């Protein structure tokens, strides 16, 4: 049996509820533990600090409520161009 990736259950719950969350709380931050929504917060810091305290563990999903998640870019990193001389 394949081992679960970290936050897999929480991420699946979020994807299931993304539309309704976005309709009700666009751009806010949601904290999820297992299949349970811990809370909705205005900022990431607030979400992590208050959400993890409410959940009783820091191992929670803290996600901004957007309609889609766009991949980020860091071309120098991904193209391996950060190397060179080291100090």
């Amino acid at each position, binding site marked *: 049996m394949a081992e679960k990736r970290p936050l897999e259950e929480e991420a699946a719950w979020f994807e299931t509820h993304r539309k309704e969350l976005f309709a009700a709380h666009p751009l806010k*931050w949601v904290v999820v533990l297992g299949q349970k929504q811990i809370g909705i917060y205005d900022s*990431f810091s607030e979400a992590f600090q208050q959400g993890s305290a409410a959940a009783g563990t820091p191992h929670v999903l803290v996600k901004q409520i957007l309609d889609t998640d*766009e991949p980020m870019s*860091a071309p120098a990193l*991904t193209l391996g161009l*950060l190397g060179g001389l080291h*100090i």
Partner: protein
Amino acid sequence: MAFTYKQGQAPTLTYSENPPPILYVFGPRVNIRVYSFVPGQAAFEGHALVDTGAQKTCIDVTVAQQLGYPQIDTEKLCHAHGTSEHPVFPVTFEIPGSSFGPWNNERLVGVELSAQKLCMLIGRDFLSIAHMTYNGPSGKWYMEYPAPPRNLSQMQPQDVAVKEMLKLVHRIKKVPAKTKPAIVKLTDEQAAAVAASSGGIAIATMPWQVKDIKKRFSCDDAVSALARIVKEHLNHDARAALRLKNGAIESVPWSERNVFV
């Protein structure tokens, strides 16, 4: 390295000890201190590189894990062959010896940086609250914060400006007509063009709400409403570095902005 934060001056971080070749070879680097998530565990000190190409600030995944940070999300990173998934950590860090920070529980993306002898890449989310000058001939670079640094997660990456703008436009559209709010006449494409013409700065991330629009703005069109918003925030919000001129939104030159005191 010198920090100033005096009355009437913007706080400035200046790196100037090195001759020009050092900056050329190594790029704009800064010492960084990453605090442990585990109480009592020593902090990690290393180098961070300012990378204007990086959309978000990244941390070496091994450093984050060794310092006990829990993974709280994942982030997809674009590369030539598609995307890869990376953990996200709530990291507390500071620039040692500076009056700025520490930045608490910032949302940093875990990537492999140890081969480059780096522990962090400072990306455009960090730079969205700063003014940076790279002076190649003199070998100097400066970072300046027009206002005391705020929480990075309150900043919206510039790349989402258009998307944010469109969301805002949709929200404005939902306001009942009897309240005489800003009536949006722009199409999504036009609104996107307005956002794009502003240099990608996230207009829609200013701290205003639909209810504020009802209360404060009775403009007939979105451009006028935006102009009012820009004016209102220009003097005290670094993100409001925009103004309306000849019907277009433009970035306000740094020299014309009021300095935060």
